């Protein structure tokens, strides 16, 4: 930071944002598990968990509220969960159930404001500033949304709602009481709330960041709040210090829409495979899936990245950029296979992922001059149309034979860009 910028930063002494809170964060509690309990009333009030794979080493994606009370947490293995809670019932994910509920929530929210954005499959942020519904009062709107969710979507579903002057504090408020909370952070109560929380309760501050702050003499949120921009810049050694200065004071800094940067698919192998020949059908299916999604969104990619996580927990990855954009699955597969075999290791693989990056919006008509490319585009487009009409993978490369039960449909926790595309095409 140059001395002039440093001087300007030191002159800034912002108070807590005095504007009335207009941001609302809505978080569907224990999303996947609660939706399963909504679907099957016999599971209500029982400890259940939605798991990636229903096997002892399968990962718990979402424990129900009852399972959480028994100590079961997201990220645990099924066997660990069952040790804590022997009556734990496990279910594999049913993505379309969750997507349908997400769309219904979205429809409900749009009755109050058009200025909202889904942050994940189970989280929405609403800005009610300037909308007629704001006259009802933020608290009243929160209560109404809760009631309507129960009446119109599902009586077992509960949401935690947070109200704040910016996105960050609205989310923090939503985390204050789970499940079924309705909390607000404003100019009057922020100090009281900050006093009750620790640094790692803040969304975005994990142990490593907390250590950085501790090293700068910041041990509590109140210390964090009272630090100057200069102190925070030094602690984070980046512009992040300035962002945190604004966030904690209720000023907006997170109203950023990150565009699509890549398309990727990942798969945990159910059995040990060490050879490239053994892994290649799975690699092919991963490429088919992510390239289909990419083409449907109207992109081609120059970059291909392959990552391998081995059974011994070591990791290898490599990405490479082609001089021409790639769009057909067969070309991308050849490229990805070359990357995969360049790994110096021949160890048992536990997990494989492929991502396509360096995206460009495709304008295939410009390429029509080149006959070969034109043929390839037509063929790829015809295959995509058949798969769209009759379901994915009706036409598949012979290489993918035997992978019917691999790389099944999954719903991402954070990224819901795909869902946005689905909503647009419905």
């Amino acid at each position, binding site marked *: 930071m140059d001395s002039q910028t440093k001087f300007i930063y030191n002159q800034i002494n912002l108070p807590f944002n005095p504007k009335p809170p207009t941001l609302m964060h809505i978080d569907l509690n224990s999303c996947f598990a609660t*939706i399963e309990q*909504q*679907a*099957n*009333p*016999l*599971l209500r009030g*029982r400890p259940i968990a939605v798991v990636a794979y229903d096997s002892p080493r399968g990962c718990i994606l979402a424990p129900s509220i009852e399972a959480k009370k028994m100590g079961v947490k997201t990220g645990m293995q099924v066997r660990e969960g069952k040790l804590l809670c022997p*009556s*734990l*019932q496990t*279910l594999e994910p049913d993505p*379309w*159930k969750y*997507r*349908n*509920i997400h769309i219904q929530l979205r429809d409900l929210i749009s009755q109050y404001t058009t200025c909202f954005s889904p942050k994940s499959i189970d989280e929405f942020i609403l800005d009610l500033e300037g909308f007629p519904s704001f006259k009802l009062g933020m608290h009243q709107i929160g209560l109404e949304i809760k009631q309507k969710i129960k009446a119109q979507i*599902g009586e077992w579903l509960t949401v935690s709602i947070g109200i704040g002057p910016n996105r960050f504090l609205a989310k923090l408020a939503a985390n204050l009481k789970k499940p079924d909370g309705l909390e607000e952070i404003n100019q009057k109560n922020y100090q009281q709330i900050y006093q009750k929380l620790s640094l790692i309760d803040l969304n975005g501050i994990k142990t490593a960041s907390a250590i950085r702050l501790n090293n700068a003499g910041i041990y509590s949120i109140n210390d964090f709040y009272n630090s100057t921009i200069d102190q925070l810049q030094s602690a984070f050694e980046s512009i992040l210090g300035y962002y945190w200065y604004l966030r904690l004071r209720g000023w907006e800094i997170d109203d950023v829409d990150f565009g699509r940067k890549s398309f990727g698919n990942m798969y945990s192998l159910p059995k040990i495979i060490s050879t490239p020949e053994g892994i290649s059908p799975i690699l092919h299916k991963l490429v088919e899936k992510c390239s289909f999604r990419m083409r449907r969104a109207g992109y081609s990619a120059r970059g291909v990245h392959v990552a391998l996580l081995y059974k011994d927990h070591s990791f290898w990855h490599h990405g490479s950029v082609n001089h021409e954009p790639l769009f057909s699955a067969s070309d991308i597969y050849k490229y990805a296979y070359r990357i995969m075999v360049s790994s110096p290791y021949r160890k048992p693989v536990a997990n494989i992922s492929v991502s396509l990056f360096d995206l460009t919006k495709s304008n295939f008509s410009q390429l029509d001059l080149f006959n070969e490319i034109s043929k390839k585009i037509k063929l790829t487009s015809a295959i995509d149309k058949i*798969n*769209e*009409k*009759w*379901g*994915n993978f*009706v036409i598949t490369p012979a290489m993918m034979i035997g992978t019917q039960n691999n790389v099944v449909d999954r719903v991402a926790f954070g990224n819901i860009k795909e869902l946005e595309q689905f909503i647009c095409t419905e």
Partner: protein
Amino acid sequence: MHLKVDVPVSVIFVYEPNGAKVFPLKVRWDGRVYTITKVGLHHHFRVGRVLHHVFSVVSDETFFRLNLNTDNLSWRLEEVSDGLPD
């Protein structure tokens, strides 16, 4: 006990114009007729262009997942459960 199945079943289906509600009323499976007492969730998805409606329903102590294929108007039973761990 949670059982994944995939069998055709007979379903009596009701359309209620007040509030435009649709729901399965009875299902015949394994030689027995079950009266649906509650619809937990109704959701839909597409396989290719074919729209499927899924009704997650309960008849007393038995849960059924019923799938209506809107292309050939056939019903299939996909899951049965008593809500207890296996």
